[in-house]
């Protein structure tokens, strides 16, 4: 298969995240829950990969594994000692710090000097188009703005891979649409590598270079769609809608499988 071959050549060249038959189970004995079953996945440098699946497909588990928050039960997970950063559905900014303080925090923890981290934090706020909001408190911002601060905080970690766990899940459609444009721009400008988890098919097709479809309970990779439509894309364009419909059908079939 040509897709597989292409993936393999990329793997050898510049894979940043490589999962090989990774399994994850919780509990033991009769209470065992297999969350991920032999998942193999490679993310190349600079790639934007969307992980898509229905409930119970273990997509968040997978991100936790890559982020090192949890241990794998089987297989190999190789990130080559690279730094990863993880964003959640909640911005989870610290209310005792100003917006700038939140963005500076990762640099403060790394021991970067005051002046340098302040300057870098201000640059990052400019990247997410929040210049001038540095001295606000997180609660003074809207949900979409808080999520951009969280993105700036993630970027401040200077990580090689950005993991995003349904980061726009709690936002209204208009805000989400605009933030898609923003994320795409920042990904392009900052040359990020992104692994993005979502259950929103259109969102996945709108953003991803590839959409990796996971089955549910246990999570397995059932399809790896390359998305080749020209960027910048629109979520309501015929190309995106068409491909989203195709993937949705596949996802529906997968969900129906659990009826019996």
């Amino acid at each position: 298969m040509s897709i597989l071959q292409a993936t393999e050549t990329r793997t050898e060249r510049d894979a940043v995240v490589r999962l090989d038959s990774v399994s994850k189970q919780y509990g033991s004995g009769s209470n065992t829950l297999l969350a991920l079953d032999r998942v193999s996945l490679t993310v190349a440098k600079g790639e934007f990969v969307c992980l898509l699946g229905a409930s119970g497909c273990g997509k968040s588990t997978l991100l936790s594994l890559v982020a090192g928050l949890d241990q794998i039960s089987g297989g190999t997970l190789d990130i080559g000692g690279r730094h990863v950063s993880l964003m959640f559905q909640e911005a989870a900014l610290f209310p005792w710090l100003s917006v700038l303080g939140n963005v500076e925090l990762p640099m403060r923890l790394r021991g970067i000097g005051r002046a340098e981290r302040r300057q870098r934090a201000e640059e990052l706020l400019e990247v997410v188009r929040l210049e001038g909001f540095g001295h606000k408190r997180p609660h003074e911002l809207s949900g979409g703005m808080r999520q951009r601060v969280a993105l700036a905080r993630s970027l401040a970690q200077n990580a090689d891979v950005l993991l995003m766990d349904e980061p726009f899940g709690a936002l209204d459609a208009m805000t989400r649409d605009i933030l898609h444009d923003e994320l795409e721009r920042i990904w392009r400008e900052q040359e990020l590598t992104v692994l993005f988890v979502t259950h929103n098919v259109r969102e996945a097709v709108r953003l991803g270079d590839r959409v990796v479809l996971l089955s549910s309970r246990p999570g397995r990779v059932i399809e790896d769609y390359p998305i080749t439509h020209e960027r910048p894309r629109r979520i309501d364009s015929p190309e995106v809608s068409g491909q989203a419909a195709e993937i949705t059908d596949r996802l529906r079939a997968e969900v129906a499988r659990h009826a019996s």
Partner: protein
Amino acid sequence: MQAEVPVQDNRTASDAAAADRITGLDALELGPRRSKAALGGRIWRSAWPKLLAIAIVILAWQIVVWAQWKPEYVLPGPATVFGDLGTLITTGDFWDGVRVTMIRALTGFALAVLIGTVVGAAVSRFAPLRAAIGSLITGLQTMPSIMWFPLAILLFQISESAIMFVVIIGAAPSVANGLISGIDYVPRTWLRVGQVLGMKGFAKYRHLILPASLPSFISGLKQGWAFSWRSLMAGELLVIVPGALSIGVRMQQARDLSESSLVISFIIVVLVIGILIDVLFNAADNALRRRWGLTGS
């Protein structure tokens, strides 16, 4: 950092449009700021219910006096008491008493905060320690402080130390419990952020656990203060240290001389000090809530 790509004009234009969109959205979502009501108005709105309550209490008191339930020299009326109180607070002796009492209160409370914080931090850090003394702390909290005085007097004789002992044992458990529950209830999402940012050991406490437990710690302090103030008043009535003419001692003297009016004056003084300190704690609490955005609206 950024690769040199030839920028096309249409891209710049579309980027500018995107910037406008997001800035516009931000402006819409933040909405217009509501201006605060005038300072005078706000003070009046919070003050009048209190003033009304005080007026009702004084009226009820006056009615009891008018009804001649007790003779005037046992239960004097508000006019007599406030007259005596007015004279009292112009004497230097009275302010010396307040000074003695307040120094005791502040030292005792400060020591209680120190000990409570250390114990609370240790208990929340080490599971076996929590299993051992976690419920003991709550038990101590519910114990009436006056129970400690016989032991305190045996241990420290009639001395400042005896009073301090009871004040600290009354207040420290509240402070410790405030800190413990603050640490226990740090939201899970914040802990996950801490993990993602690689916080460990001391840095985790410094940058996440301690600031996150601040609201609960402050309510622990507030409760601790109430307990220490109560214990101190009990102590000043029971443990009369020679030479230290505190508020409690002066109140005892007034009772010995059957000066009801003066006894009631001291009750009012103690009440007022208690309320003033409570106002300070509430101000700190409200300031924190506003900063964190925990207030309604």
